[in-house]
């Protein structure tokens, strides 16, 4: 029996269109028939209402059948159901009035029907498509604007500002105060922690153990996949964010900056602050900077310097002098013109001049300086005392002495210091460590042991 009711119920979405169409048509005919030109239409007005009323009754029956086994928002369903039944009754009344030729009553019945069709239809639409379906198109432009956009995403609260808007857009339709499918609500911390009828949905620290996340990554054809087939799906970026949120502890109050951010997360996060492109990497300062002078960049490129943005969304520059053996005054001056933008300088094996050292001293955003195997002297190195942001310094294979290095004691942010193949050895490690407390100091001179088996080649034992 249940299955038959179920079957009949599933005809409702099809049948609803009949009374809407036929009754609207009947009303139109009815209205036109009052004009002299269409006076012949009068003959079909009763028939139109009759068919309309009949289809309305059939639709009501199928609708009642459908309501028995599908979970809908009860309040909307209540309105839809009773307005629909009322509509069917009024349409029957309309038939009665046509038979009795009661023109005045029929007119009022027609107006009532018009209102009822509109209301019932609207509530029906709300049931299947959600409350915001109709107005979504109007809102969409606003919505993208309203999408969280921070001047500094690092200051955003991960759950409230980033995760919740995703849930709101993709999950609240069925899991919030509107509907609670599977007895689950996701519209507050308490509800999320409470879970649904199948138990907890959320395990802080493990996305793969959280049904909330697991259902998102199920095969889209799987019945349990969320959001359900046909509904707007979680995008890859949103998935990554949710995964990151849960895996990094699933906190509801922590700010983005308090959590470790892998590279791709930085990328996704950067999208939240499109208007203020900002580099999200320890190696690059977070404050904004104007684009470097394009003419200077072109000229440097012409001189063989590979100079380009560290990333498409950043105005900071990385410069590689691998094609340059020795700089000249022109290059040194060009470096000065773009110096605030340069964060990484790579000059392996370069012939150092005083003017080059001087030019580099202008690069106060500089975080990485690779001058391994260059001819830099202690004296030239002293120019770099003000490069306060420097945290990577590669002096491998240079003539720098311990005394020369200690001139840079003001650079306390250095956290990687490469001193291989220099006269500085690890017997001074303690002193250097004291001077650069944050630094990981690499003296190099690594070697691999000689193990006897290294050179032994195994052969097949000969048969005896």
């Amino acid at each position, binding site marked *: 029996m249940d299955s038959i009711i179920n079957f009949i119920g599933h005809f409702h979405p099809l049948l609803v269109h009949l009374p809407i169409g036929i009754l609207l048509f009947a009303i139109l005919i009815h209205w036109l028939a009052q004009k002299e030109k269409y006076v012949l239409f009068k003959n079909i007005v009763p028939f139109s209402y009759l068919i309309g009323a009949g289809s309305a009754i059939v639709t009501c029956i199928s609708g009642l059948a459908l309501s028995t086994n599908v979970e809908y928002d009860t309040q909307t369903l209540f309105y839809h159901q009773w307005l629909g039944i009322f509509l069917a009754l009024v349409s029957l009344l309309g038939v009665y009035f046509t038979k009795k030729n009661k023109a005045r009553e029929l007119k009022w019945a027609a107006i009532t029907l018009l209102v009822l069709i509109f209301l019932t239809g609207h509530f029906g639409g709300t049931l299947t498509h959600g409350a915001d379906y109709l107005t979504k198109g109007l809102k969409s432009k606003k919505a993208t604007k309203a999408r969280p956009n921070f001047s500094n995403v690092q200051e955003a609260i991960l759950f409230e500002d980033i995760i919740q808007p995703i849930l709101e857009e993709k999950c609240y339709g069925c899991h919030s105060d509107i509907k609670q499918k599977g007895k689950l609500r996701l519209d507050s911390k308490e509800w999320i922690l409470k879970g649904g009828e199948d138990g907890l949905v959320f395990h802080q620290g493990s996305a793969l153990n959280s049904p909330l996340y697991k259902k998102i990554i199920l095969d889209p054809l799987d019945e349990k996949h969320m959001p359900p087939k046909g509904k707007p799906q979680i995008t890859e970026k949103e998935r990554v964010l949710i995964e990151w949120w849960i895996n990094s502890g699933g906190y509801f109050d922590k700010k983005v900056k308090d959590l470790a951010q892998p*590279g791709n997360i930085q*990328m996704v996060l950067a999208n939240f602050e499109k208007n203020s492109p900002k580099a999200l990497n320890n190696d690059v300062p977070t404050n904004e900077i104007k684009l470097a002078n394009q003419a200077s960049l072109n000229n440097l490129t012409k001189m063989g310097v590979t100079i380009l943005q560290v990333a*498409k969304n950043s105005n900071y520059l990385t410069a*590689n002098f*691998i*094609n340059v053996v020795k700089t000249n005054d022109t290059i040194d001056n060009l470096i000065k013109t773009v110096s605030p933008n340069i964060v990484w300088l790579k000059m392996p094996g370069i012939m150092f001049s005083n003017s080059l050292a001087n030019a580099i001293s202008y690069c106060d955003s500089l975080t990485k300086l690779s001058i391994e195997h260059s001819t830099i002297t202690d004296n030239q190195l002293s120019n770099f005392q003000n490069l306060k942001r420097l945290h990577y310094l590669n002096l491998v294979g240079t003539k720098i002495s311990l005394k020369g290095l200690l001139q840079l004691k003001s650079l306390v942010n250095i956290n990687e210091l*490469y001193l291989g193949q220099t006269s500085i050895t690890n017997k001074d490690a303690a002193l250097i460590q004291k001077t650069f407390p944050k630094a990981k100091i690499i003296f190099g001179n690594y*070697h691999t042991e000689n193990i006897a088996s290294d050179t032994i080649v195994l*052969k097949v034992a000969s048969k005896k």
Partner: protein
Amino acid sequence: MSKENKKIIKEATIATTEQITRKYFFKECFSGIGAMALGSMLQGCDWLGNKDSFNNFTNTNPLMARAPHFIGKAKSVIYLHMAGAPSQLELFDYKPDLLKLDGQDCPQSLLEGKKFAFIRGVPKMLGPQAVFKQRGQSGAWISDNLPHLATVADEISFLKAVQTDQFNHGPAQLLMHTGSPRLGRPSIGSWVTYGLGSENNNLPGFVVLTSGGNNPDAGKSVWGNGFLPSVYQGVQCRNEGDPVLFLKDPAGMDRDVRKASIDAINEANQLTYNEFQDPEIIARMAQYEMAFKMQISVPDVMNINDEPEYIQEMYGTTPGKASFANNVLLARKLVEKGVRFVQLFDWGWDSHGTDGSTAIDIGFINKCRNIDKPITALLLDLKQRGLLDETLVVWGGEFGRTPMQENRDGKTMPFKGRDHHTEAFTTWMAGGGIKQGSSFGETDEIGYSAISGKVTAYDMQATILNQLGFDHEKLTYASQGRQFRLTDVHGRVINEIIA
């Protein structure tokens, strides 16, 4: 013939001709061809095309250095591919339970519905043929086959549950490097060069070195450019003698004359390009230029004899002879000079046990000894030069090997060997912003199948691109009417191993 029959025949004739006449063709195809034309016309429009797509090919200088999508940790990649597929069960995936099952028949449950390259009938289980120990602070399991690598275990992130769906060498290698088991897609090195260009004007962005006596089974397609302009294909250097032939100008031809002749050829090429707009002409021009510059740069970079004695010893190189160690040292030199992607293939890891050289307890161990010291030296050398943070080192094969002993054609084999295995194998990454001393993914107690942390070739590719600063979904190239990318419709960045 009756009148009616004639009518029927006439109708039939018209019906047939309708299908073949020119007018009918146009009538029927009008909408289809129209839509295709409209599609290609609209492709240039921003509102239809993907705004974020990354068409990087420039006609003036296709190898010009370019910025990635976001700030990447790694600037270059050294990919060490052990062609033939090394056994994870004798290197990194320690399975003591497998030892207990040694010599027993493989349970039916592991064989039902499975296909193997060579195993037929019911094979015997084969216990680990190596002694394992936990190494370093991280406690990574590394066997005694790699005693040197064991000392740098704390630099490495292991992927223990890599999976593939190809059990033959060629397709599996293609999948690993081009994202498709079939020919025709660009290799990962080509994608990277297309995305980043080359920092060094005098060297190609993507260099390939092979060792072990053979090219990989998939042939040169594993470093091919596919549908990308051919300027992005891998440049293979010879593994013995001069790495690049004909670097010296012939007698009587000085460098100026050489330059003048290349300029003249390229001028002619430019005219042809202006007429036909074929990007391959640009590629050819760029390659002439590059070859000219490489005459100067290559002898310097490619000469490992200039490296000091202690470096040679560290890597265990044998100058003048083809060897994996030489290639690894070369790889470091190339990366140091700004080459983006160095691809090493070492052939001979296909340990089936058909003869001594493929026996898991003989030839396989020799192969391990060949790579152990050089790879360890590479990690240490990059570290002491301050390059490990910006150089991503990837190690792996194209698939794994079975916990069962191979029984080719149902017969017992003369040597201990393992068949191709797709369901779980180990690869690792180090440097380039990858976590130090970590491991991701687990296999079951006999190493047959992955039980957690499964990753695919696509995931590895997505991760490599991510470390270089690319969103693998946005590094695309339009070919034959659609945007292609390395990972096709797959790929997940393996955040679990990223520092």
